[in-house]
Each structure stands twice: as structure tokens, then as C-alpha cells.
């Protein structure tokens, strides 16, 4: 077989050829084929993106290349992985002896994983972990290995590399850890780098930095990259060639421009149609619901209709008014329990939400957006400030009114699995708010209401008797929406509610939320970091940075005429799902600063000015503006 390939491609032969690779988990009747007959080539120095949604087998494929599936209970049942480490030398990694394979792992082929928070060993120093690879494969002594490690840290643009060597992973932010991971992977100048969702868990501005580093180093070192991702924006930015995977199979393979311009397989077409594209709403003042393409029985089908979301009613008084809301948490205490540091999670934030309106609260981790949501849900007591719901001050409400408020403001969380009790049927979970708030007392009436709610969110009445684990992620989020609707709320806080979902599912859930808004005149506080989704769903947008709103206005104003440097930075960092677009040489540098401050060091609360009617921007210091 390998001879045959060599004959086919005498010049410019691929660095890696995967042929008819299948991976199976479990044995006998319970056996599950995660990857089915996959074949693709990786050319030296080029980037191949393997795209797919959850369960597509893309991550298993990435592990199988170095036979790391052996450690996860997987077996490679068919196929070969031909690797050509140098001219004329070929090696089938599937059948290679263990010691040969170990000499290749980390040396000729290296890997970067998704979760930077857990991919470094917490008990060893950064220097130690990078040096380990070098002593192993290049036989360096400890001192030389550490000085090489330092050079590598500089290469991934980490400041203060020398001190970082002695640091432990928990002392670094996610973005810094992922750079360390890249430094570690590139330590022995690998010919192939496998990157499995390396930026998925990172904030968008940090993602942009990491992608830049990978791209630059790849060019500098001539490394080939297999980039595993679910994000079509990242694909468009990074890939030369694309393999699309679906349910364990390769459904399409083509150069990146061709995939985006003329997708052939129905699944690829559905996937691309579901991807929210930043800039797609330019020129349109209101959010718009558009049909979603789904695959049914192998054929693409459009579901839903086009509808302008003209639900927001600005003639009535706002349903929610937040004024100078401040929330701080004590951290850092002295030996005697005196507070030395506080997290300034939210600082003097003011906004309002009108009936039928969606206000998006966008920001990166630590911006305080989730704290606001939790404060409104009365899970956190604010430090100061007022919250008025329907004109009534939350702070002066009696316990009964506060309970009533919990009925009128509902929450949808990010992780639909963690927010449903696994030991109760979903019918029970949906009925709970009805029972708690004594909305109905007759068992039959409650059951009827639960069935009605399930139908409203696109599930079947008989689903009520099932348990959460019997549903897919998208269905579970529908269950959570049904539960949120159960108490007839006026306002729903959706905290990253669609962030963890596959894009095709995400598009459907976004449509569902918009449909429900139209039917029930619901208001949403849509908390997210995803600018593309924000553009699609929201009437107005508030951009948060370090606990303060730096820009607030209509979606059109904020997206088409961003004024604050941070808003611009955020928009520029979003990967655009369009490979034909010029790759802007963006200069997004720097970490997101910490909101932890010493007691007495109050943050400067920015004043806000109105740049156009309803569009407010925080006034920046000139120096800051220049730097950003």
C-alpha cells in the first residue's frame, strides 16, 4: 500500500497520509465506530482543517494519528497512517512498534489540546514541563533544556520568560497557558502539529492572538498543521485545505476557498448556512429571523421563516431599570481576616430593558456580565445601586414580592446538562416552577401545561417522562427554555445559553428564542461573548469591560459605528467565515487585566457621553486610546 502511494506522488509527496482509518470503542454488541474509513493527506508546511460538530469523530481522528486512542479505550480497526519524517522514509504509525512511536510523539509530531486550563500538569513548573520534552528527545541536560525553554517562551511572545520558567500553571491565565502549550509542542521543531480546538476555550481577543502565533510560527518553522475545529470562522482564517466530518465520516474535502464558495455535500451546505457571520446584518436596523437549513433523511431542508423582529416597544416604560449597580467580592485576606483585595466585578453599571426587547451584554471573561445576570436573579446581593422591575425597587421589596420577582425573571444557563437534575424526569423539572410559585394546583392542569410548553419549544409531549441523559445537548437546552417559560416570565436572562451548542443547533435555538419573543412579548438579557450571535439576535448592545459598560447603543450603531477602542478590538478579533477576505494584520496584544484590586485602590469609573441619540460611549484617556 505504501509503495502504491509513493508511486502516485513521486514529487511533493504528502507528509502524512491517512488511509481508510477506522476507530472503534468498546467490543461486541456495544462497539461504536467513532471514525469510519477516513482518508486524507497533509502536505508539508500546509494547514489542513478538520471541521465537524460534536460527535463527528474529529477529535478521535486527531488522537488516532499518533495512536493516542490506545489510552482512551479506542482501537484502530482498519487503515494506515503513513508518516514521512524525512525523504524516502515512510512509516505506518498504526503498526509501528511502541518505542518508535514514542520517539515520534512530541518530536516529529506534536499536539496542542483544547483545554489550556487542564492541559498543563499543575504540580510541575512551566520550565520543567517544556524542558522535559527536550531532555527526552534531544538528550539535553537540565540547564541547556531550561535555556531552550526560555527561548521558546519568548518565541510565543510571553513577556518575562525567565521568571515564567519557575511559575506553576495555576499562576497563569488561560491565554498564557495555551502559549506555554504551543511552546511545549514546538520544542523539538515538529514537522506536524496537531491542534485540537486550541482556541475554543479562550476569549475572542486571546483567540486572535493565539491564531496569529500559530500562523506565524508555522511559516517560520515550516510546520504542517492539522487544525481540528468546529468554528468555520477559524477555518477560514487558518486553513489551506478542509476536511468536513459528519457522524464519523468524511463528507467533503476541498481547498478552503472552494469549501466556502461552492460546498457540495448537503451537510457542508447546512453547516455553512448556520454559521453566524459578523457583518451579515449591516444596514438593517432590527434583528431578523432567517430559516435554518437542516439535514433530514440525508436531504437538506429549510425550516423556519424570515421575520423581522420588531417586538421591542419603546413607547412603554422599561421593564427593567438598572442604575449604578456595583457588585464587589472580597478576596485576599490577611492572617487576621482583614480584607485586602476585592474583585470589582461590576462598577456603577446602568442600563434598561424595554418590553419585547433583547439587550445583549457582551464582554470577555471577568467583564462582570454574568455577575449582573446573577444579581438580577437575586443570587448575589449587590454592593450598591438600584434595580427596578416594572418601576418597583428590588431593594425595598418584601420577601413575597421578591419571590414573585423570581417568577417574572427567569434564567437559562450555559450548560443545559448541569442545570437539569439528572435524577428527575424533564417533566418534573419543567413543572417545578409552576408548583413552586403555585401557578396551578391541579395535577392534570400542570401536566397539560408541561406538554404545551414542550410543544412550544419544539419537543414532543411524551418527552416529559424522559430523563435529561436521554436528550442531545440542543434538546436539553430546549428543555431549559421550556422550564424558564413555565412561570410566565416577562424577562429571561440567557447567560451564554447558546455558546456550548453546535452551530446548526445554535441557529435553531436562536430562532426559537426569537419566535418565543414575538409570541409572548418577552424581554431578553442576552449575556454572551459571541459577537456574531449578538448581531443576529439583539436590538441593543452593551459592551462590558472590567466591570463597566464602555459602550451601549442600538445593535446597528455599535456594530457599524463602534466608538470605544475595546469595542473595535472585540469586533476585529472575531474570525470571519470568509476565506476570500483579506487577512488583516491585526495588532491585538495584551492580556485582559484583572478586576482584583487592593482595598482603597478604587477603579476609575468612566464618564459616558452620548455620541448619537441612544449611543453612549465611555470617555477614554487619550493615552489608552493610542495604545489600543
Amino acid at each position: 500500500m505504501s509503495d502504491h502511494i509513493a508511486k502516485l506522488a513521486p514529487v511533493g509527496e504528502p507528509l502524512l497520509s491517512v488511509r481508510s482509518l477506522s476507530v472503534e470503542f468498546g467490543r461486541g454488541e456495544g462497539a461504536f465506530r467513532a471514525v469510519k474509513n477516513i482518508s486524507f493527506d497533509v502536505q508539508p508546511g500546509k494547514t489542513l482543517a478538520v471541521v465537524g460538530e460534536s460527535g463527528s469523530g474529529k477529535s478521535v481522528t486527531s488522537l488516532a494519528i499518533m495512536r493516542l486512542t490506545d489510552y482512551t479505550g479506542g482501537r484502530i480497526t482498519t487503515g494506515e497512517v503513513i508518516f514521512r519524517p524525512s525523504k524516502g522514509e515512510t512509516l505506518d504509525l498504526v503498526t509501528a512498534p511502541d518505542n518508535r512511536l514514542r520517539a515520534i510523539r512530541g518530536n516529529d509530531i506534536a499536539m496542542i489540546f483544547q483545554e489550556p486550563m487542564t492541559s498543563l500538569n499543575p504540580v510541575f513548573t512551566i520550565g520543567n514541563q517544556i524542558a522535559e520534552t527536550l531532555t527526552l528527545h534531544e538528550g539535553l541536560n537540565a540547564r541547556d533544556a531550561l535555556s531552550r525553554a526560555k527561548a521558546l517562551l519568548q518565541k510565543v511572545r510571553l513577556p518575562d520568560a525567565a521568571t515564567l520558567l519557575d511559575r506553576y500553571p495555576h499562576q497563569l491565565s488561560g491565554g498564557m497557558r495555551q502559549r506555554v502549550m504551543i511552546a511545549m509542542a514546538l520544542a523539538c521543531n515538529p514537522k506536524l502539529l496537531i491542534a485540537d480546538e486550541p482556541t475554543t476555550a479562550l476569549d475572542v481577543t486571546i483567540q486572535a492572538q493565539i491564531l496569529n502565533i500559530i500562523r506565524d510560527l508555522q511559516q517560520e518553522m515550516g510546520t504542517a498543521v492539522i487544525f481540528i475545529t468546529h468554528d468555520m470562522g477559524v477555518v477560514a482564517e487558518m486553513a489551506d485545505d478542509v476536511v468536513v466530518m459528519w457522524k464519523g465520516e468524511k463528507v467533503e474535502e476541498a481547498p478552503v476557498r472552494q469549501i466556502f464558495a461552492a460546498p457540495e455535500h448537503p451537510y457542508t451546505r447546512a453547516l455553512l448556512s448556520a454559521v453566524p457571520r459578523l457583518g451579515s446584518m449591516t444596514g438593517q436596523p432590527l434583528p431578523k429571523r432567517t430559516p435554518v437549513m437542516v439535514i433530514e433523511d440525508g436531504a437538506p431542508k429549510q425550516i423556519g421563516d424570515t421575520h423581522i423582529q420588531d417586538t421591542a416597544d419603546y413607547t412603554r416604560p422599561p421593564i427593567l431599570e438598572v442604575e449604578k449597580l456595583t457588585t464587589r467580592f472580597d478576596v485576599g485576606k490577611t492572617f487576621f481576616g482583614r480584607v485586602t483585595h476585592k474583585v470589582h466585578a461590576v462598577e456603577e453599571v446602568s442600563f434598561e430593558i424595554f418590553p419585547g426587547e433583547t439587550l445583549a451584554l457582551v464582554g470577555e471573561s471577568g467583564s462582570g456580565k454574568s455577575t449582573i445576570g446573577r444579581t438580577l436573579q437575586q443570587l448575589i446581593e449587590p454592593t450598591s445601586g438600584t434595580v427596578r422591575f416594572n418601576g418597583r425597587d428590588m431593594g425595598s421589596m418584601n420577601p413575597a414580592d421578591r419571590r414573585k420577582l423570581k417568577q417574572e425573571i427567569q434564567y437559562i444557563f450555559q450548560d443545559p446538562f448541569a442545570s437539569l437534575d439528572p435524577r428527575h424526569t424533564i417533566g418534573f423539572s419543567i413543572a417545578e416552577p409552576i408548583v413552586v410559585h403555585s401557578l396551578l394546583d391541579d395535577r392534570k392542569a400542570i401536566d397539560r401545561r408541561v406538554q404545551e410548553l414542550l410543544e412550544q419549544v419544539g419537543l414532543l409531549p411524551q418527552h416529559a417522562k424522559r430523563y435529561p441523559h436521554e436528550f442531545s445537548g440542543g434538546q436539553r437546552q430546549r428543555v431549559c427554555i421550556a422550564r424558564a417559560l413555565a412561570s410566565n416570565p416577562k424577562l429571561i436572562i440567557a447567560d451564554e445559553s447558546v455558546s456550548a451548542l453546535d452551530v446548526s443547533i445554535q441557529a435553531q435555538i436562536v430562532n426559537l428564542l426569537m419566535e418565543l419573543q414575538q409570541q409572548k412579548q418577552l424581554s431578553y438579557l442576552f449575556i454572551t461573548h459571541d459577537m456574531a450571535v449578538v448581531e443576529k439576535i439583539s436590538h441593543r448592545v452593551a459592551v462590558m469591560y472590567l466591570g463597566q459598560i464602555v459602550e451601549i447603543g442600538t445593535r446597528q450603531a455599535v456594530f457599524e459605528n463602534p466608538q470605544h477602542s475595546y469595542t473595535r478590538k472585540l469586533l476585529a478579533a472575531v474570525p470571519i467565515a470568509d476565506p476570500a477576505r483579506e487577512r488583516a494584520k491585526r495588532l491585538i496584544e495584551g492580556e485582559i487585566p484583572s478586576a482584583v484590586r487592593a482595598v482603597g485602590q478604587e477603579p476609575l469609573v468612566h464618564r459616558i457621553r452620548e455620541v448619537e441619540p441612544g449611543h453612549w460611549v465611555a470617555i477614554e484617556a487619550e493615552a489608552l486610546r493610542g495604545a489600543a
Partner: protein
Amino acid sequence: MAGFILKRLLQAIFVVLVVTLIVAFAIRLSGDPAIMLTGAGSITEQDLQNIRNALGLNRPFLVQYLGFLHGIVVGDFGRSFMGGTPVSALIAKALPATLLLAFTSLIASILLSVPLGILAAVNRGRWPDQLVRILSLVGLSFPNFWLAIMLVLFFSIQLGVLPPSGMEGPASFVMPALTMAIILTATNVRLVRTAMLETLSQQYIMVARSKGLKDWVVLYKHALRNSAIPLVTYIGLQFGGLIGSIVIVERVFNWPGMGTLAFDAISGRDYPVLQGTITVLALFIVLINLLVDIAYGLIDPRIRTE
């Protein structure tokens, strides 16, 4: 790290104070030591008064407690009611024997349970795992005194290779230590297995493998240290239970340690000896747990820099 240790040290001192207070107080709860000592009825009130005076029992409780604390500091626990030997001398003789037994069995158990636990975790669900789990269950099911007696029956009476009791040379050491080690290993091996399974599912283990490290380096360097925290915690907690088992095991093997000393003191109502042994054992448990806390910091940098 210094602040961390200081904090734990202050906590330990507080614990010691509470423990000694309970020890000093609890013994009074069981009745008037003078009556208990002489056996009620056959003695006049004047005699009792004399005994109380002689033993210092009619001083106010606080004075007695402070005297007791002072005794701990200078190493004077009074004299035994039986024969008048200083308690500190009795403890000085018994303590090394017990510590030797405790630490040998603990170390033996760690040396056994770590490789076995790792073996079970790596082969989860396959026969080595099943075997280790069955053996551990068997070990857990034995009462310690029964196990001790069975060992004596087998090694001393049936085979005649080991002395059945006493402390004479290394051979007499094998069975008491083995009994303790089996009991400890039965629980520790499960703990190692569970902790390793948790650690092995972490991303950084896959990262270590993707670097090309050998399996044993991944397991014993990368995984073991991360699994050590629950193990070390448990060993600290186990130490209290260990002392409890030692009393029984020492009794069966007639091992001249703290357990035997305490046991005899209880039977003979020898309060000074009882108070002394319990206090010293309690101090040791506190000390071990302090060492465990410090070990945390050494193992896990996240705790150190907290």
C-alpha cells in the same frame, strides 16, 4: 509557605489545648479517682481525703489542668499508681516500640498499595483490577484481632517459623507489622485506584503521552504526584484509626508498646499512666496531621501559594 505553616501550627496548638482539656476532664467524669482506686466501701472518708491530698485531686480543676499542662511541657506525667514508676519513663520505653510498628506498617502499606492501585487503575475493568478489588475487599472484611490470631496460628503454631508474641529481634516484628499493613493496604489500594482513575482522565496526562514519555514516567511522575493529595489526606486521618488498631494488635502479640501500656492502665485504673499515654498519642496524631498539611504544600503548588 511560611505563613501557611504558621497558620497550621497555630491551629495545631489550639487542637492540643482542646485535646488535653478533654483528657483531663474526661477522667474525672468516670468518678472520684480515689474511690475507684481503692475500691469503695472498705475505706474511711479520712483515708480517701488523704489519697486525694496525696494525688493533688482536691485542688481546683483549673489548677490541676495547668499542672497537667506544665507536666506535658517538662515531660512529667506523674507517677504510676502501680509501683510508682514515673509515667514518662514508661512512655519512653513503650513509645519507640509503637512508632516502629506504626511506621513500618504504614510504609509497607504505601509500598504495596501504590503499585497495586496504579495497576488496577490502568487496567480498569480487566482482570488485574478485579483481582486487586477482590483482595482489598477480603482484607477489609477481616477484623484485625482475628487476622492477628490466624497469623499466629499459621506462622507460629503450624509452621513454627515466627515467635508468637513479645519483642525479641526482627522476627517477632513480622506478624504485628503484617497485620497492620494488610488492614491499611486494603483501604489504601482502593484510594490509590480511585485517585489515579481521576488523574488519568485529566488532559495533562494525554499531553504527557503526546510528548512521547514512557508509560511508567507518565504514571509515576505525572499522575502519581497529582493523586498523592487524597492519599496523603487519608493517611493523616488514618493515623487516628491506626492507633486504635494498634492497641488491639499489640495486645494480641503482647507487643510492649503504647497500646499495651494504655490497656494495662485502663484495667488497673492507673490514671496517671492512662492520661500520659492518651496525651502522648493525641499529640502524635496532631503532629502527623500537621506534617500532612505541610506535605500538601510541598506536593501541590496551588496550596502553597494560596
